[in-house]
């Protein structure tokens, strides 16, 4: 029996869940009628993309890119540090995602006030 390739399984798990989150979010955005659920779908897509970024930056057996005293010892012993650039980008992306969600929710509230409903199939003025 061959040795089980641990990283093969991990890659299927991590990439699979990231792509799965993106697809679930896209499904929610396209299928759901309630605007709040569409906003939730957008933030699920966000989470999937962030997970994908972090997974791409991972290096097997890598440690966090922090030069604490343990980190310096680990690097001297030959442990690689994971790529810091995707993590910094994801930090930015999370903050922007928060801004997008907040503004989208406020627009939903505004629509609800105007039309008395937040379901897009009941907002009549959208029909052309």
């Amino acid at each position: 029996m061959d040795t089980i390739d641990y990283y093969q399984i991990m890659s299927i798990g991590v990439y699979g869940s990231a792509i799965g989150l993106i697809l679930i979010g896209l499904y929610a955005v396209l299928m759901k009628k309630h605007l709040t659920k569409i906003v939730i779908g957008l933030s699920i897509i966000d989470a999937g993309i962030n997970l994908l970024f972090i997974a791409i930056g991972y290096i097997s057996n890598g440690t966090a890119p922090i030069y604490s005293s343990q980190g310096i010892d680990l690097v001297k012993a030959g442990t690689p540090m994971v790529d810091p650039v995707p993590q910094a980008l994801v930090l930015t992306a999370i903050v922007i995602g928060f801004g997008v969600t907040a503004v989208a929710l406020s627009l939903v509230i505004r629509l609800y006030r105007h039309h008395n409903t937040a379901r897009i199939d009941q907002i009549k003025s959208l029909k052309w």
Partner: protein
Amino acid sequence: MKKLLIILLLAVVGYFLTVSMSNIKFGANRMGDSSQPKTVGAFYLSKTPGELSVANVITAIVVNYRGFDTLGEVSVLFLAATGLGSILYKKKKKGEHLPTVKKPSSALLQAGSKLIFPAILVLGAYVFIHGHLTPGGGFQGGAIIATGFLLMMMSYKDFTMNHSVITWVESLAGITFASIGLIGLVVDHSFLENFLPIGRINDLISGGIIPLIYVAVGFKVAAELSGVLDTLLSIKEK
């Protein structure tokens, strides 16, 4: 019919995502050795301890190498908070007080949140003060502080944020960030250039301007997130 089309679209998107990701091996070292950096990530990893003496490389990237980007990010957050306020603006009647929650919460929750609220504030301050040494930073610490304010808003009926205090904290923090950048421009001919001594790695006071900027970002994010939460919670329907 529509559902079928959407599932077909999702299948196509999923297929192409899977195909493109299958070429990227999970856990492979694409950065190269940090003694001879090939990619920008390895370059940051090799330069950060010597150039900036900042332990947390992500902080070094966010605040120093891409500090201008972070200034833009903070202003996006500011715009989101302002836009939220202006979209949801409703003229208040004189002397009208908008309650954040309708029913008062239980005595247990009130006592517990009073007990835990200072601890949350201290944890948030710890996270953004130590942003250059440990995982965390201004954005994370600010978010933690905002959760503390959210807890107070949820448990106390008449807990309201003072909006003029929020605006002042926000503006002062933003001005601090921008003026530190401008001092760098005057002293070292480059915006956000480090003009303070970098100190020793893993000391609390190290990394030059990075801790100062992250403390300012922490205050700004905490004020903005609390303001957003307060705006969203004090919506009055009809």
